[in-house]
């Protein structure tokens, strides 16, 4: 505690920031994961659906660095395809939750009054409908399909952004800095860009980053209750639950999708620790 104030960076430097070691490692991690997800399926030319039952749970070897899964499919190939699908699905659903969620939150804070009340009630209603219920109900329309999961996850997630943005913007919008800009004739867009975003973005990014992991985990939660993507589509979340039973015999199998997610998330968090580290 005594060193609390040791490096009080009351004011920080403007201008171009130099990248810290943490950020570099974050970038490297992120590039690794993204490269694996994007290029992996192209480079690894094993068919992820190709099964050799005789080689079930075979231990990793040089030729197959991650071994084979319970059906004797190449784990590496499945992981690469799964990473591509999961990460893009996660990105898609998080973005399509974050963008409208934040915008609606802004709208509510901006307009206030009735608009705000109605929007808040709507958000409450969505929040009150458990996300899982929503996804399960949607998934029942198209079992194994892609879109119900996507829509469901986005629908369940947007409220998070709505609430956070609304709460923070309400305070910011009442501040003298925004008042000054308004007096000077700046429009909504400018105020959002120059006054709100700089303050909100770090918080939103934290949510987005964890939201990405959350979306993948939501898939695994759905897999857990028996609603997931259609086999044999590899997907990280579903793989986690599918490979769970083998955690004793082949712990590396269930660990590898978790590790991909871990590295991706770590990369994201490290990368954006900009200016926060002293």
């Amino acid at each position: 505690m005594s060193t609390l104030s040791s490096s009080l960076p009351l004011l920080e430097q403007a201008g171009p920031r130099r990248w810290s070691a943490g950020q570099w490692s974050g970038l490297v991690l992120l590039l690794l994961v993204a490269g694996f997800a994007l290029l992996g399926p192209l480079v690894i030319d094993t068919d992820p659906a190709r099964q050799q039952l005789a080689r079930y749970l075979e231990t990793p070897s040089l030729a197959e660095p991650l071994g084979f899964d319970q059906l004797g499919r190449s784990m590496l190939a499945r992981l690469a395809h799964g990473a591509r699908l999961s990460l893009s699905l996660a990105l898609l659903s998080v973005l399509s939750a974050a963008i409208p969620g934040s915008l609606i939150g802004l709208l509510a804070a901006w307009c206030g009054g009735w608009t705000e009340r109605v929007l808040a009630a709507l958000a409450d209603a969505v929040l009150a409908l458990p996300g899982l219920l929503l996804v399960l109900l949607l998934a029942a329309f198209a079992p194994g399909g892609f879109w119900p999961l996507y829509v469901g996850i986005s629908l369940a997630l947007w409220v998070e952004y709505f609430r956070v943005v609304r709460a923070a913007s309400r305070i910011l919008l009442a501040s003298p800095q925004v008042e000054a800009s308004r007096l000077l004739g700046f429009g909504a867009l400018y105020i959002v860009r120059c006054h709100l975003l700089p303050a909100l973005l770090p918080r939103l990014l934290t949510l987005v980053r964890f939201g990405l992991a959350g979306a993948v985990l939501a898939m695994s939660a759905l897999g857990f209750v028996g609603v997931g993507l259609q086999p044999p589509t590899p997907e990280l979340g579903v793989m986690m639950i599918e490979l769970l039973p083998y955690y004793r015999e082949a712990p590396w199998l269930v660990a590898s999708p978790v590790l991909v997610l871990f590295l991706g998330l770590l990369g994201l968090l490290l990368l954006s620790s900009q200016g926060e580290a002293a």
Partner: protein
Amino acid sequence: MNASLPLDALRVEDLTVWHGQQPLVGGVSFAVPVGGVLSLLGESGSGKSLLAQAIMGNLPASLRATGSISLAGQYSDAADGRSRQSGWGRRIALLPQEPWLALDPTMTVARQVAETYELVSQSAPDQQNESLRRARSQAAASARRALASLGLEAAADKYPFMISGGMAQRVAFLATHAAGAPLMIIDEPTKGLDVDRRGEVLALLQAAQAEGVSLLCITHDVWLARALGGQLAVLQDGAMVEQGSAEALLAQPRHAYTRRLLGADPACWPLPEVRTPRADAAVIAELREISKSFGEQALFAGVSARLHAGEVVAVSGPSGSGKTSLGNILLGLLQPDSGQVLRAPGLPRTAFQKIYQDPAAAFAPSIPLRRSLQDLVRLHGLPWQELEALLERMRIAPALLDRLPRQVSGGELQRIALARVLLMKPALIFADEPTSRLDPLTQQEVMALLVEQARAVGSAVLLVTHDADIVRCVADRRLTLSPAGQSQSQPAH
């Protein structure tokens, strides 16, 4: 006890503050004797606040200090700020320049003062022997007494966003003062305060001094330096130009800058030539029977006024009487409880502008100044050269614009805010203490510029100022808000 040598409470030797390779404050040396006072006068942006921070040891991370600093005989390297941190509050306390930002937005005013009494104050009885509750209630009582002494009893339970600029100034001062540290550094303790309040602050300072507290007082108020007596130092452009006893120096300034500075005291400003009343000028805005209260606290009632083009109307009244609120009502930023605000028809949306009492709060904190100004220029298709010219007249170096708002001095930011508004050529300017953070010289120039520009463009100016001299020299008319609730409008002269 070592009585052999009369120790200095603070001795600064060859202190330099560096921004990279560039010195912002260069090689300053001075000393504050035990129980003595050193007033620091100087040009806005000359490095007074940085000096104070360097002494405390809380310079921003991007700056560093060299030289040496001795606190009550205890020597330390200026670069080694950490070594002085343990003495914060107990041996040395600092009143920061921007009081409003320094107050915790989520805590009531009274508690922020009380906690200094409870946790820091050396005058507080030994807390070991006392129950915590008792200590706490005593601290609360002391805080209320202190608040009352500066006329803040009504604000005790308010949160910082509910109090006026001058009240924030006093609260922050009290919170610092309560620590009872043997050395206090106070950065502009009287800015934005009316005569009565200034007197109260001075009385508090003198009382502290009588108890043996040493003061390093940064100020633009020449009368404060004079009243405090002791030593005086004058800073210009990061360098100490003159130092000596206040009495002598004020009576016979040697350095040309000091002479100019003292000559620029509003009390010595020339009276303007008597202008004919502008009854014929267009009415820009009109207040009709405006009243406003916050909860049970009534600010004013039945205020009526007309603002004509090219006219400077001063609003005066004690701190907390509702000057800022009145301006906000005029600008439509605050709803009056009753009454009407009329705007001349056909004025654009941006015709009414405001110069904020607290300039630091009115800028987007994360946008470099140049960018926000460029955005403004682009938005309204204004000529950038005109802005540069304005800045130059106010002696703001263009290089400053590349910084963030919090990386320039308070006075610099205030001038930039003023330039921003003048550039807009508005029909009405609500100038809320527009020169509160400026040294007299700059103040005079800036005020002249403001009036000149307003007259040239035909802007009406609603000028809030606590300084009767300024009112006398600048304003055409004067609107006084008195706490009793009535207000009257009268000619300025």
